[in-house]
């Protein structure tokens, strides 16, 4: 998600911004074992440092991991899959410790994974051949379900993988990762290369997958609509760290822009300085025409505050997710 430029913001950011959505930091899934968890995980590389990472991915829900390029999303997946070993900390997945050197065949059978980049080495294989190869490792492989998904996605499995378009290859890999009905589905930017129609089919298929019982999706994504349509929780990552875990509806519902008209005898400047006391205030700026534009992270309380203080709200709208991310990341850097 893009970093917007500061633009012509007139007044200074008010930095008493308390992020209410922090209330959502602890998912309300008390008692249930998380699908995966990181505690004190540290990964040091010469050019990159991940962690300390403390994160619980709630079972039975869809969690979207979002953040700028290079923030550590894909490394997080590699750690879960034991493709990278942490320098410190504990990783648990589906109740088992990850990376202890024991045979993890059983554990891997319970998950499905779609990596960010499709494998280039199997380009000469036909789709049918790769599926025949892969299914040997999965006793729970459901041939009918796999073929149903390929039909839904309009994938021709008789093609060589290298000859498929990027979008078709992506859809093929999704069907391949889901055909054994995994308990946990790990998706690293699943929709890259998909056209809008295929994207909708994917969203429907992922909803269908979640209907299939106690299942969990963890997905890294840059697509805002994907987060909106699929996620229950949003984990925001920046520079190798989780800066917050939020309930999606709460996060999207609590950040609003208000336009405040000045009461008689007050200048927009007066309103701007008074608005510093508004609940959840993020920033204030004069917007011309005697109005002030105010961004708050606690919209409902802020609305009541305006009413009590006698400020007239002449317009308001919810912030888009990318704008919220931009502000949250800026606050925590």
């Amino acid at each position, binding site marked *: 998600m893009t970093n917007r430029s500061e633009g012509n913001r007139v007044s200074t950011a008010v930095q008493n911004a308390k992020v209410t959505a922090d209330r959502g930091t602890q998912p*309300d899934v008390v008692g249930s074992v998380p699908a995966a968890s990181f505690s004190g995980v540290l990964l040091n590389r010469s050019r990159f440092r991940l962690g300390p990472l403390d994160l619980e991915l709630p079972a039975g*829900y869809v969690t979207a991991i979002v953040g700028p390029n290079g923030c550590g999303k894909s490394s997080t997946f590699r750690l879960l899959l034991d493709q990278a070993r942490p320098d410190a900390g504990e990783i648990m997945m589906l109740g088992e410790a990850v990376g202890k050197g024991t045979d993890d065949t059983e554990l891997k059978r319970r998950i499905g994974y779609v990596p960010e980049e499709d494998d280039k080495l199997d380009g000469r294989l036909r789709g049918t051949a790769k599926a025949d190869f892969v299914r040997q490792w999965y006793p729970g492989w459901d041939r009918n379900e796999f073929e149903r998904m390929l039909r839904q996605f309009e994938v021709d499995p008789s093609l060589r993988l290298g000859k498929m378009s990027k979008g078709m290859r992506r859809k093929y890999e999704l069907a391949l990762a889901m055909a054994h009905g995994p308990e946990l589905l790990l998706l690293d930017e699943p929709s890259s290369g998909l056209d809008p129609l295929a994207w909708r089919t994917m969203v429907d298929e992922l*909803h269908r997958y*979640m*209907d299939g019982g106690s299942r969990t999706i963890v997905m890294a994504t840059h697509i805002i609509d994907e987060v*909106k*349509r699929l*996620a*229950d*929780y949003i984990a925001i990552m920046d520079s190798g760290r989780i800066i917050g875990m939020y*309930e*999606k*509806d*709460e996060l999207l*519902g*609590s950040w*609003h822009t208000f336009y405040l008209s000045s009461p008689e005898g007050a200048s927009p400047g007066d309103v701007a300085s008074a608005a510093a006391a508004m609940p959840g205030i993020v920033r204030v700026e004069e917007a011309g025409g005697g109005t002030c534009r105010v961004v708050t992270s606690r*919209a*409902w309380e*802020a*609305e009541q505050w305006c*009413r009590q203080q*006698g400020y007239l709200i002449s317009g*308001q*709208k*919810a912030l888009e997710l990318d704008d919220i991310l931009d502000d949250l990341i800026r606050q925590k850097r």
Partner: protein
Amino acid sequence: MRLPIHINEHSAEPLYHQIESQLRSLIMSGQLEENTLLPSNRELAQNLQCSLITIRRVYQDLEAEGLLRTKQGTGTFVAKVDVEAGARQRLEAVEAAVSAAVDAGASAGLGRAELESMLREELKRRKMT
């Protein structure tokens, strides 16, 4: 079943609150009859394009109020609601709030005229007729 619930995305009212109050009035008004099977959590979440957590919260709150009941493995149903008792209860809550406001006014030394004009001002500010 599609519930006639409409979400205003640009309202500052939290999503769970919007859904909860609309579902509550559908039940209290008798539009949803006793024993009606409501959509599953996932189904309603997809219909309203909100998260599962929000729907769980709505169903839990309304169950705690006695408006819904959940049968394990079967689903969520509308409970037996005494529509008149519900209306009476809400009216009593308003009367108690008004009475508390008069108490607060009295202890601040306000007279009848001032209290009346405050109520009128408040109604005017909220554009209630």
